[in-house]
């Protein structure tokens, strides 16, 4: 996924720019944290990358395809097949059971359901015995874990998570975060996480810092560590 000169403004008279020409790239299998103050454009970036919204200018390429050339149906297909979303709140559909909620993306895409895959994932996140529960019968952490499985239902290559632990207490938040890192390693799915939590951000392999609609810093933790080690070695 690659974004070129991405810009987004709101309002028609007085324009507020949420993004001001951002170049941005997510590679396969990455685990990235996007940090920044409120209103710095993190969520806007995520929404554009996930094709939930269309940019005011600039282009987004997914697997080499320019998304600005796609119609609504193709964009919906892109959202359904390539990207998975996790929001701050679980947003599970209250009328459906845990298993049904997790199967929903497969139902929408109508290419047959792979119930085994979804059940395995639910077992993997510790909800194997809650398949028939309704969302309101689960704890906050459990609900968010269902949302994580739902995002993975169509085996997307990229998961976009907008403060996925923002609504959870620190213990549950840490559990969900652990789960995401594990799934990243096990499945090779790329993750881009917006977070306010520094401790979590520090556990990502890449950190993108945003401010005032622009990327102010973008570094890989490994490279920084290596550099720091080199500097330390030179100093000793």
């Amino acid at each position: 996924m690659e974004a070129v000169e991405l810009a987004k403004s709101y309002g028609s008279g007085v324009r507020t720019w949420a993004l001001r020409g951002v170049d941005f790239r997510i590679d396969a299998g990455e685990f990235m944290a996007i940090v920044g103050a409120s209103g710095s454009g993190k969520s806007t970036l995520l929404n554009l990358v996930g094709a939930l919204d269309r940019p005011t200018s600039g282009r987004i390429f997914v697997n080499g395809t320019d998304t600005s050339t796609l119609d609504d149906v193709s964009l919906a297909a892109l959202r359904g097949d390539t990207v998975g979303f996790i929001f701050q709140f679980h947003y599970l559909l209250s009328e459906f059971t845990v298993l049904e909620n997790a199967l929903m993306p497969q139902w929408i895409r109508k290419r047959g359901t792979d119930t085994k895959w979804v059940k395995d994932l639910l077992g993997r996140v510790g909800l194997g015995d809650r398949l028939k529960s309704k969302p309101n019968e689960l704890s906050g952490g459990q609900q968010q874990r269902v949302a994580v499985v739902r995002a993975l239902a169509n085996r997307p290559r990229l998961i976009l998570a907008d403060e996925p632990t923002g609504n959870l207490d620190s213990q549950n938040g840490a559990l969900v975060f652990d789960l995401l890192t594990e799934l990243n390693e096990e499945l090779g799915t790329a993750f881009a996480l917006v977070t306010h939590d520094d401790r979590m951000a520090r556990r990502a392999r890449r950190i993108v810092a945003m401010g005032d609609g622009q990327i102010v810093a973008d570094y890989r933790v490994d490279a920084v560590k290596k550099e720091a080690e080199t500097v330390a070695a030179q100093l000793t």
Partner: protein
Amino acid sequence: MRGFELRIAWRHLLASHGQTELTVGAVAVGVLLVVFLSSLINGLQSGLVEDVVGSIPHVSVEAATPDAKPLWQVDGRSGAITALEKITTRSKRIGQWDRIRSAILGIRGVKSVAPAVEGDGFITRGAKTVGARIIGIIPAEQMKVVSLANRIVEGDFGQVDQQNAAIGVKMANDLGARVGNRLRITSNRGVTQTFRVAAIFDLGVEQANESSAYIGLQSAQAMFGIGKDVTTLNIRAARIYDAKPIADQVRGITPLSVTSWMESNEAFLDTLRMQNVAAGIIQAMTLLASAFGVASMMIVFVVQKSRDIGILKSMGATRAQIRRVFVLEGLGVGLGGALIGSGVGTGLCYLAKSLTIPGQVFGGKQATIVPMQFDMTYVAIASAVAIAMGLASSIVPAHRAAKLDCVEAIRRG
């Protein structure tokens, strides 16, 4: 079936905290009212029509009465006599009526044709004399053109012949006559013959009950001196409202005077038409009110579910899919309302039909409190309208749902 859309629509409807039930109820009441009202009005009207038309032929063919012919005309200024006219005393009559009858029987929709000889006269029993309309008929034929079976109070109409007569219930009272008594019937040509009373009838029309007397056809032909001719051909149509077109066709094959019941009861038919229009308006209003109910529920649904819609879109649901979800919901409400409404409506119709007034018989059947005439057509039409209405009222809300902006919908809920 479109699995995903149907699943979502179904669950939305099931988990609506009573909204679905109330709206389905509103549609059901609409359908029920249409079914019940239609059956009631139809029952009332066919009762009325039966009262008016049952005892008279649907179409009558008569020899035209010859007009008085002016013989001499004087200038009106001076003399007292302005015109001399020849009043014909010759009875009007239809010659070779058998051929005309065959021709009429060939017209589509004609069930039967009966010949009759009609004329005026009087009836005497002892010291009592009453004026009468004397009608000569062949009983078996006459019973095919007017429904008499339920209208015989006493005796057997089938026995009417050259010695036996049938008279109205009022005339019987006036003359103090019972079945088996003898009467003297005199035609306006002065021919008198004695008859035995074979039957007493009640046609539901005061005038007929007071003055009609039926005798055998040949007796009447002799009494009115018209040989083998008749004065009237009475026609029964297979369908009552075909009377007018049949009358028009009969006019095409004979110059005789032709009258259908629909032409002689224009005002009555107008009243029925007005009644139908009024009932139609009430029914349309009822269904329209139900339609508003469905539309308002759908709009509330879309508002309530806008976050879900956003989430579904984020998972790849297309606009068309979202639209289908809400159209299916509208369809579901229409279908549910139609099923329940027609079920309960049909039940109520049959219940109302079974409520009889104990001990009262009307037209040979137990008299009912409400004269219902149920027809599956009403159920079919009301149901079809309800379903179409459910669909139609969901179109705008469904379109609104499909157009919802994904990010906005999720953020604002």
